Every structure is written in structure tokens, then in C-alpha cells.
């Protein structure tokens, strides 16, 4: 199945801003992080279609997964 992955801030370095990826059915967010060599501990926010998500969540085809390091502002 196809998903769209968006990376932000430092996660873009040496990777990409946005990419479509072909992943097996049943793939979790943690699996995607693994293939990107991003440690779960370094992740600040995960959004699937604009909703907060956890690493163990399974992804459905067509979703947009956004991955942020811990950042903030105000």
C-alpha cells in the first residue's frame, strides 16, 4: 500500500521533506521510523491525517504520516 511521509525540522537532514512510500499491509509507524533510522525516543509528535498518533499504530493505505522531533515555540 502507498502512504505519504512528511518529515520536519532536523529529521529532514539527509532524508527528505515529503515522499510517497510503498509499505506492506499492517505496517506500523514504528516500522516506518525504523526504515528511516529515526529513534522513537527522538520523536516529539506523530500525526496521521492531522491526528496525534502513537508509534505502535498500524497505518492504512493512503494516509499522510507527519513526523516531528521535539520542538516548541509560542
Amino acid at each position, binding site marked *: 500500500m502507498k502512504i505519504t511521509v512528511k518529515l*520536519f*525540522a532536523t529529521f529532514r537532514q539527509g532524508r527528505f521533506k515529503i515522499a510517497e512510500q510503498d509499505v506492506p499491509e499492517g505496517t506500523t509507524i514504528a516500522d516506518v521510523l525504523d526504515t528511516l533510522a529515526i529513534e522513537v525516543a527522538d520523536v516529539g509528535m506523530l500525526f496521521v491525517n492531522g491526528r*496525534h498518533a502513537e508509534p505502535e499504530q498500524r497505518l492504512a493505505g493512503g494516509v499522510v504520516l507527519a513526523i516531528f522531533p*521535539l*520542538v*516548541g515555540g509560542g
Partner: protein
Amino acid sequence: MDKILRVNMTNLTVKVEPVPADWAGLGGRALTSTIVAAEVPPTCHPLGPNNKLVFAPGLLSGTAASNANRFSCGSKSPLTGGIKECSAGGTSSRIIARLGYKAIVVEGKPAGDTWYTVVVDKDGATIKPETEVLRLGTFATVQHVNEHYGEDFGVITLGPAGENLMAIANISVKDPESKIRSFGRGGLGAVMGSKKIKMIVINPEGGVALPLADPAKFKAANQAFTKTLLDHPVSGQGLKKYGTAVLVNVLNEAGGLPTKNFTSGQCAHHDAISGETMYDNIVARGGEPSHNCSPSCQIQCSQIYNDKDGNYVTSGFEYETIWALGADGMVEDLDVIAEIDNVFDDIGVDSIETPVMFAVAMEAGLIPWGDGKRILELLRNDITNATPLGRMLGGGTGHVGRAFGMTRIPVVKNQAIPAYDPRPIKGIGVTYATTTMGADHTAGYAIATNILNVGGKVDPLSNDGQVELSRNLQIATAAIDSTGLCLFIAFPALDIPACLGGVIDMLNARYGINLTGDDVIGLGKQVLKIEHAFNLAAGLGPETDRLPEFFELESIAPHNVKWDMDQKELASFWNF
């Protein structure tokens, strides 16, 4: 810090008084709000002789404590009609604290048309007629002070907007680079202008190191506190690198980035105006990604942003400003946004109220969407010269919306709503509705827990737990605002217990007291209650603790949600 400096503009006299015992344990916001509540009649006209303007360094300002050199300005706001406290960086807080002043209280109002400069020194102040810097922008005014008084003087001043008593006018403070930091919100520049003060300059000569009851304990506490600032990923790395503008992409993903005058929660050109793009531009053009607004800041969320030729354009280039112009007003070019930010600083207008007002003016058809050049013209011509059109715009978001008969006017208590849509982020909606300040995200930054996963997680799309979240944050914020510490210490404070522990230890070591965490929370509650009582007496009753109706009528994409919090539940905010 054992003196209060009173500057009376009615009879042009100055008095130095001892600090009353009741005020000894107060600083920053706790002190400004206490003095305003005690001495300003809540029903007075904000621009009349009975209003006062109070400047107060925080309880830790002037010491070696990291991030503690911010200060508060309090008054009755001409924008909201309620009590106001703003926080600003710059160099003045430390100087005022080291001269021994716990507060500077400006009162009264002169008859006649003469403008004045107030020169503060260790023995008091002199009030002298001012002609040379009238009508000058804030950058030129600071330059004038550097040349004619001294580079090390503190400067608190007004741009043309303040001289013309506009409700969007802020008060500008000189920063370490002789650029500008601001007491931004609520039109306090108009209050200073009504008292005919163009600038307050502060002579640092004779300032002394502040006494510490237990120097060794203070040093250890500051080290422990500073370590938490550097260890936490948000304050230690994130803010340094990307500034606050990193939030553009975060809020866009979360569907809470108000776009085109609050008609969508996402913005198609978000990446062009993001913190990531800003960082790339800064590095490519020889600017500085990390920079401090005030002495002793370890977090350094500010930056120096240059144009394509490497020339300075702006600093302190904040998420709020970038959002308001870039997404809410649809200006797609970050360089144009930077230029507008510079003009905001120079003419002395709030960089939230003003651009949110422009987005409303765009919807009204007065300006084409995204037309940054037209905004620059209106700022440089109409607002600077106070033409009738400039005065209409200078009245702020609510004023312009009413002038054009609009219903989508994003204000609470007549103050513009900042960069987070309350429909998909309910916690911040509670803060906007209930804070004594009018719509103000900093009063109880629920974004931390609703969106950023700092201080736990509370689902932003659900009403559950939001009132309690906002209440706890507002209480803690009122306490932090009283210390002189930058509010961004809240990121580590929400996650690392040693952070607040360090703050309490520093307060105890500075003053030789035995405050506990409960005492600090108690101080926060006391501040909110004082402010709330002032607002009730000023006519801002419970019916003003609400969001504008359009949030209940119009749902917002992508989550397609409305504001649907029960008014009774909102009112329970004050049950403490």
C-alpha cells in the same frame, strides 16, 4: 530593590519611596497587577489622568539567574478595557533592578502639548521637555539615545503609533543589539503616549550587584536550573535552531493554523513561511539563527534575519507574526513578512493585533489578499502619519471589523486572537476565553499539552480536561511572569521537576525565605484573582469570557469542527 520610583506627569514631579511591606514579596506581573488594582480606578478612561503605567522587573531580574532579565508592564488597557500585563526582554529590566527600583510607576497626565523624556538614574529621575526625537521611529530613537546619553543606557520608547494614541501601539524596549523588543499587546503604547512621554531612558551608573541571602545556594540552584534549560530538547535545541516559527508546520499538520482570516486550519504555502525555510535563509545569508533578546538568556529563541544581500532586516522574527501575515493574511513571501515585521517594530505596533487586523481588512475588501506591499504602504504612510484611514486601522482588529459590518472578527475582549485556532485545539480556546488579558496564548499555553506533547498529552479535539489544563497553566504562568523569567522555561518546567525546584531555590536564596511549590502556586492564584476582580469592576463580566460566535457557527477544515464548549463549563474556570 527596595525603592519605588513615582513619576507624576500631572505636576511633573518625581518621588522615591520605600517599598510597602505588602509588596516586598512581589515582582513582575504580581507587582504590576497589584499596583494597578490598588491605585487605578477600574472604571477610569485608559487614556485619562487616572490610569497608571507600571514597570516592574521580576523577582530574579538583575541577578545572575539564567533567563531572568525580562520585566512586566501593567496598566488598564485601551484595547480591552481590562487590566493588562505585558512581558518584554531588552536591557532595561536588569538596569532598573540593579539601580534598586522594584517598580517605576508613571501617573497623571500633563496639560498642554509638550512631550517629555524621563531620565531615570540611581537617585530618582528628571522629567525634561522632548523635541528632538518626536515622530522618529524606535530604531532612530534608540540610536539617538546611544549617541546623546550613552550606549549602556536602557531605553523604553514609543513609535509614531504610540504618539498618536492608537490601540495597536506597543511600548518598545532597546535590546542588547540596539534593536527592539516590545510590550506588545493591549495598546500600552497609547497609555504612555497619553502621558506625553516619548521615552524613558535609564542611566545604569551606580547600579550594584544585588544582595543574595545565600550566595552559594543561589549559585548551585542557578546551575541546576540552567542545566534543565539546556537538557530539554525544546529549550536546549529546538528553539535555538528554528526559533518559534517551527510551529508553522506543526500547526499546519495539526489542522490548527488559522488561515485566510480563520476560514481554514491549513495553509497551502505553509512550507514557504516555515521555521525550516527561515533557518535555511538565515544560514545562507549570513544571519544568526540563535540570539538573545535580553542578557543571561540561555535558550536564545531569537535570531537575526537578513535579506538576500546579507543586510539586516529583522530580529525576534516570531511565529505569531509570521503566521498572522503569512497564513492569516496570505502573504506568501517570507522576505516581505520580515520587512513588515521590521516596520512594526519601527513604528511601534503590536505584531499580533496589527496583522490580524490586516487580515480582517483583507476580508473586508480594503486590501487584496496577500498584498504585503500594500500593507507596507499603509503602515509607512497612513498609520505612521495618522491619516483618517490610518486611525481607523490603528483601532485594531475589532474596530476594523465593526467598521465594515463583519461577523468573522477574531477577538476576545476586543483583543486579536493569536496563531492557534480554538476549534480544533480546545485547550487554547479556554485560555482565550477566560484569561484576564483578552485573547492571549501566552496566558495559559495549552498548545504545549494539546499539540506538542510537553507536560503530558490532552486530546486537542475533545473538551475533556481542557478547563483544568488551562487553569493550571494560567496559574503557573502568572507565577513565572512574576519572577522575570522568560516563559519558555515552562517547556523544561513541565517535564523536568528540577527546573521549578531550581527556581524556588533561587528565590529562597535571593531573599532568605522559605517558599514551597505550594506558595508559588498560591502566588499565581492570587495574581489571577486580583486581575479578575479588577476586570469585573471594570465591566468585563462573565459574559465577556467567551469566544466570538462565529466559532460556534462555522466549522473549520480539515477536522471540520466547531467550538462547542458549554458556557457553564467555561465559567467553572474560576472555581479555585
